[in-house]
């Protein structure tokens, strides 16, 4: 809030007792936090609603009593398999992967101060995806080893992009362009790995190219849950440092942030989340990219975006997957839906920044 706007705020209302600047700032903060809390509440409610709908509705409808029975571990004929084995892991992974992508994406966007610097645009998701596809298709390994490889690749790509774009300081725009180049290379590697597979399976291919939740089981869901439980608190713990790093490295370190250390923690945690989610569901297109800007628009400026963006991400994946399964004649992978929705927004964002004449 600029000084003038504070002063106008102070001057409004001739009858009201004059407020000190500190009081106005405090009020603004209270109002913003209240709005953020409200938004978080609504988003969480929508996610619960979407989750419930994905469990109840499908080719066959099961009553809430049956679904709750399955969740409690009872043996319900029909529902035990359909809900317990198919819908439950799938909906759970949708929520978890969405949370991971939202958190990881907004962390990068805030840290690099550019909405285009999200992991799915600068190639980090592509790296994780190429590694996971290679591990599963070519080395036929599974489980945690895949996630480990995906994380290694994700971190490697992050390091590579950072090093390559370092030239007397890292510049956001250069980093993004270099990331786009790396992403192109990695995507063609993924395409190569897939084309070498014994039989080209289009469903499997879309998983590693755009993200897909078809045929998900608990074996894929659980590692993501573990990663989220371990890494999300780390990110949330850094949220203050993250907001201050937006002021620039010098200001942040003057405010007492250990910039390099904090950035390292943030990058590792964010890449970890992205990589685990990618190893399970593939690089679901544009979720990491969209979640942050959408959340920013809903909650308004001046508050931490981590939690709202995570929730927006979860909602996007959940709704995208549900639409992909049932809204069209055939089952479309979630990544296609989010891609079709997200890409026009990306173009809109570029048009808007170009119009504003910003340097991006």
């Amino acid at each position, binding site marked *: 809030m600029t000084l003038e706007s504070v002063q106008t705020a102070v001057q409004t209302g001739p009858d009201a007792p004059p407020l000190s600047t500190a009081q106005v700032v405090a009020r603004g903060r209270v109002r913003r936090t209240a709005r953020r809390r409200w938004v978080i509440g609504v988003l969480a409610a929508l996610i619960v609603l979407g989750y419930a709908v994905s469990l109840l509705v499908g080719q066959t409808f099961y009553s809430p009593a049956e679904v709750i029975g399955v969740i409690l571990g009872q043996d319900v004929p029909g529902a035990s398999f359909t809900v317990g084995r198919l819908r439950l892991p799938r909906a759970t992974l949708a929520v978890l992967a969405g949370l991971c992508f939202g958190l990881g994406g907004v962390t990068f966007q805030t840290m690099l101060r550019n909405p*285009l610097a999200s992991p799915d*645009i600068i190639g980090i998701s592509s790296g994780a995806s190429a590694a996971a596809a290679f591990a599963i298709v070519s080395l036929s390994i599974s489980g945690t080893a895949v996630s480990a490889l995906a994380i290694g690749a994700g971190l490697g790509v992050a390091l590579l992009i950072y090093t*390559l*774009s370092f*030239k007397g300081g890292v*510049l956001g*725009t*250069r980093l*993004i*362009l*270099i990331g*786009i*180049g*790396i992403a*192109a*290379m990695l*995507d*063609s*590697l993924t*395409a*190569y790995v897939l*084309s*070498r597979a014994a039989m*080209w399976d*289009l469903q499997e*291919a*879309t998983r590693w*190219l*755009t993200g897909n939740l078809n045929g998900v089981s608990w074996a894929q869901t659980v590692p993501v849950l573990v990663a989220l439980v371990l890494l999300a608190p780390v990110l949330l713990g850094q949220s203050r440092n993250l907001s201050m790093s937006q002021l620039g490295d010098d200001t942040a370190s003057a405010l007492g942030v250990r910039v390099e250390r904090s950035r390292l923690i943030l990058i590792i945690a964010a890449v970890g989340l992205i990589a685990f989610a990618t190893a399970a569901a593939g690089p679901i*297109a*544009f979720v990491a990219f969209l979640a942050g800007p959408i959340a920013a628009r809903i909650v308004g400026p001046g508050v931490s975006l981590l939690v709202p963006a995570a929730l927006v991400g979860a909602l996007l994946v959940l709704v995208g997957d549900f639409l992909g399964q049932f809204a*069209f*004649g*055939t089952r*479309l*992978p979630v*990544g*296609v839906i989010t*891609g*079709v929705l*997200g*890409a*026009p927004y*990306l*173009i809109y964002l*570029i*048009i808007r*920044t*170009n*119009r*504003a*004449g910003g340097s*991006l």
Partner: protein
Amino acid sequence: MTTSTTLTPAASSVAIVRRPKRLRSLWLLVSLGALAGLMLASVMIGSREVSWAEIMAALGGSVDGFGPAAVATRIPRTLLAVVAGAALGLSGAVMQGVTRNPLADPGILGVNVGASLAVVCGMAYFGLTSASGMIWVAIAGAGATAVFVYTIGSLGRGGSTPLKLALAGAATSAALASFVTAVVLPRNDIAEGVRSWQIGGVGGVTLESIRVVAPFLLVGLIVSLLSARSLNSLALGDDLAAGLGERVAIARAAAAIGAVVLCGAVTAVAGPIGFVGLVVPHACRLIVGVDHRWLLPFSAVLGAALLTGADVLGRIVARPSEIDVGIITALIGAPFFIYIVRRRKVREL
């Protein structure tokens, strides 16, 4: 490829960086020699080696035995690699000239994916099967995408900066790629054909499809090469070009149409092949300088050499199977893209 008419070294009012004529001619000979060598390699190398006698037998029209038969399938793919590479290199050089943008390339600008989407939609919704129909559709899609991306990329202050254009292209490619997947996935009948076509391949091509695409490529080639002079003027900036008597808008549109026809037609037969149009003109500029009357033919020759080489490499690396040429060019081209981004000053990006 007789380009001697456009190579007349008349004293030009736009003398920019010039290399001695003899040196340029030498380089042209060297590249043509390299291209010939690569074409020969492309015919000889594969999962089965063939001897000289077998090649000669195959050229004589014989398909008896494995050797001549292998050669008979390799000849069309070699031809396509040469033609497609030349078209892509030329198209990239023209696009970089028209947009005055070092990152312009049919792949980066999303033009290839635009052509893909048009073709895929044509196959899925309109039962498009004829080769010439696919070419028209691909050219239309490529043109629409080129206009769209360029418009987005030039909005706002400073016109079309490399950064804005590259971002608009990347975003558009991503968007269109999602639509391509959405169209293809539900249709198992066309999925396999689209897949092999989409990664970008010159294998499995027949002389017939080259014959269909040839007139389009020829038109694109002539239009592009004829625009060399006006591209030289445009390189000085719109105002100066107008001052030199160039009708800027018409010249630019003509050159752009040539480039779009070239890459649209190539995409229709070989699928989207990225980065050839980016890498080749830059390499050529290092060799022959920035005079488009030399740069354009040179880009065509080197583009042909690059794509033929990439195709041969793809067959050597992954024996006895092969890697699609589009994957190889991406692996070669992306590092080059990064190199250009790194080399340019921050101001210009």
